[in-house]
């Protein structure tokens, strides 16, 4: 398979680009909701519109009413989300949670997927326990209780947790905190008793919860996949989410880079356009190179995930790490090359820096994933 978008994917990209540039624009969404201190951090109306475009169910199989497309297509939408810094539940709901639900039984799929496809439901995922991503360790407990389970523990960085109709929670049904086995995934409805959100605003204006599960009682049918066998589903969710976050990061990087290169062509100092200074030209050219490479490996990882390839998980980490580096560079160079104006709230480049920082942490940062690449490579 060639490593570029085919005709259908190119068409989807054109549609997504136009839609996000119009409806998902920074002024219309990110700034709008931020300046109103919106408790969700995103707009439900846009989420509905995204459903009308078919985006929300892009990864949901056709049999379940979705589009049955792959990670390449989801990535196309995410890149445009990234480019416009559009706040939406797409990554967590339509990519990570949808991947989990894809492994769930008919009952859970029937309960949750129609709402997702219609843009009426929002889902969140609760994986991290602590300030850094470390999914190898899961301490949240799920004890057998009647014919169901009782969940206790604490989760962090649950993005849009308080807005979610359902949260996919990774909990431990057996074994020690660091065991690979003994993990189970649960679909926890928002009104479950004992579910407490301490909702905080993040640097990128997204809302996230410190989630406390205080003896949350669930029926057995809330289990996604097998009891004690959730690690595999979790890994799939993580791979999907990481590759998705990489795609969004590529959009952030390209958006920041384009804006910066444009600025170099407008701003004059010393009687010249600052883009004439070779010191800036070389840095911009190096940045271009890094962003191109990051985009290539992201599409590669998407294709491998779609093909179910053996090295998909390795390349998911490569993509997440490489995008972390490249997008980080794009926003830092972006602010620097804008000079004083880059430090102002009024100008958008700083918003790219903030979103990049949050996205870099989501499902593992550069250091985590570089370490994982080393481990998976045998050193």
């Amino acid at each position: 398979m060639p490593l570029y978008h085919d005709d259908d994917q190119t068409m989807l990209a054109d549609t997504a680009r136009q839609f996000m540039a119009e409806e998902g624009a920074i002024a219309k969404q990110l700034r709008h909701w931020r300046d109103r201190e919106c408790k969700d951090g995103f707009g439900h109306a846009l989420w509905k519109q995204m459903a009308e475009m078919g985006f929300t169910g892009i990864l949901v199989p056709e049999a379940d009413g979705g589009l049955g497309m792959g990670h390449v297509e989801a990535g196309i939408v995410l890149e445009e989300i990234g480019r416009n810094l559009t706040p939406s539940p797409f990554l967590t709901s339509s990519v990570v949670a949808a991947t989990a639900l894809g492994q769930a039984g008919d009952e859970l799929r029937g309960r949750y997927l129609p709402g997702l496809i219609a843009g009426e439901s929002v889902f969140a995922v609760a994986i991290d326990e602590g300030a850094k991503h470390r999914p190898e360790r899961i301490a949240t407990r799920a004890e057998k209780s009647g014919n169901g389970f009782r969940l206790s523990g604490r989760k962090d960085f649950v993005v849009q947790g308080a807005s979610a109709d359902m949260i996919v929670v990774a909990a431990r049904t057996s074994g020690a905190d660091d065991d690979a086995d003994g993990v189970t995934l649960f679909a926890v409805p928002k009104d479950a008793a004992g579910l407490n959100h301490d909702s905080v605003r993040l640097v990128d204006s997204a809302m996230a919860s410190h989630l406390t599960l205080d003896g949350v009682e669930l029926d057995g049918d809330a289990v996604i996949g097998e009891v004690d066998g959730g690690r595999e589903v979790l890994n799939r969710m993580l791979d999907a989410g990481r590759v998705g976050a990489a795609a969004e990061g590529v959009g952030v990087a390209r958006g920041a880079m384009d804006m910066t290169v444009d600025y170099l062509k407008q701003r004059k100092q010393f009687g010249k356009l600052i883009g004439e200074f070779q010191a800036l030209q070389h840095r911009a050219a190096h940045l271009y190179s890094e962003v191109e490479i990051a985009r290539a490996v992201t599409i590669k990882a998407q294709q491998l995930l779609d093909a179910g390839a053996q090295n998909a998980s390795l390349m998911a980490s490569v993509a997440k790490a490489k995008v972390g580096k490249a997008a980080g560079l794009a926003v830092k160079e972006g602010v620097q090359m804008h000079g004083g104006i880059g430090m102002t709230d009024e100008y958008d480049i700083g918003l790219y820096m903030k979103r990049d920082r949050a996205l870099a942490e989501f499902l593992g940062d550069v250091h985590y994933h570089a370490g994982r690449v080393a481990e998976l490579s045998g050193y």
Partner: protein
Amino acid sequence: MSDLDTFRAETRAWLEANCPPEMREPVQGEDDVYWGGRKATFKSEAQKAWFEACRDKGYTVPAWPREYGGAGLSPAEAKVLREEMARINARPPLSSFGIWMLGPALLKFGTEEQKRKYLNEIARGEIRWCQGYSEPGSGSDLVSLQTFGEDKGDHWVVNGQKIWTSYADKADWIFCLVRTDKTNKYQGITFMLFDMESPGVSTKPILLISGNSPFCETFFDDVKVPKDQYVGEINRGWDVAKYLLGHEREMISGADNSERGAGIGAMLKRQAGELDPVLRAELAMFDVDALAFSAMGEKFLDEIKVGKAHPAQPNMMKYAGTELNKRRHELLMAAGGSAALEWDSEESRGGAAARSWLRTKANSIEGGTSEVMLNVIAKRILELPGA
């Protein structure tokens, strides 16, 4: 099974039958590379067998048309062959400036007669070419070159000097940039082809910091070049030269090296047992970049075949690929410690680590320096002003 799957199965079987085990070992030194040409000798029977099998199948230049010595593979088939060769670590059967540089230029600018003659000679490894571009006063600013060809009716008389001419002393023919109009900088250069045995051509080897001597000063003293031995149009050689540079840069970038650059961490751990934690972290960061670059190489090659790549993208590939390769060798030296410093001991295979490390420093100079690559990206891709 799709046609491509059938082709893959056939290719796999063919490689299994024709690629000797020795030719699946990593290249260790310069003499493991077969360059062809009148003066060529084979290092081993295996090297000869592998070369001949590929030559007869058209696999020294798989994507070239059959009438020019290739196998006429489609881009998709060529990719399958590349993947299957990479899978078994098969060495390239034939390396040559003819394949990487002159061939693509002839395919685009050559006459039918030139293509039939020169491309077949290249594909069959019969003639080895060298590249006469750089001059003492004209490196990055190549277009300022001074070597002059005086028009004598049915031939030119060429006088001047080239420098850094790789393998000039081993090559049979040279493709050479010669000024034929002193009044026109860009449209005053002709892309000539001539035999290195022509009277008046002499070479003087130059020793590199690696202790090897792969390149030369090349002198032209009243060299007669027949008037039909040029590519493209007279005085329009710069167009050919630039086109060729794109292919040269693509080749130096290592775009088709699949994942060869990555994985040194695993290798070093096997050798050393334990890695210094800071070195391990650097290796991990390197592998991230190397694996990502391998995807970029794949994407670039896929796109260039169907005309989707930006025409200046080879400059980006060269920049990124060569900087990566230099970093790789820095890491290998760091991991090797004092053992990697040995210059000529048997244990060190004649100082292979140190010499390779030094040789890679040329990657970001030869074929256009990294700085020049960045200039081109800034100008042609980012369209920055005054670049």
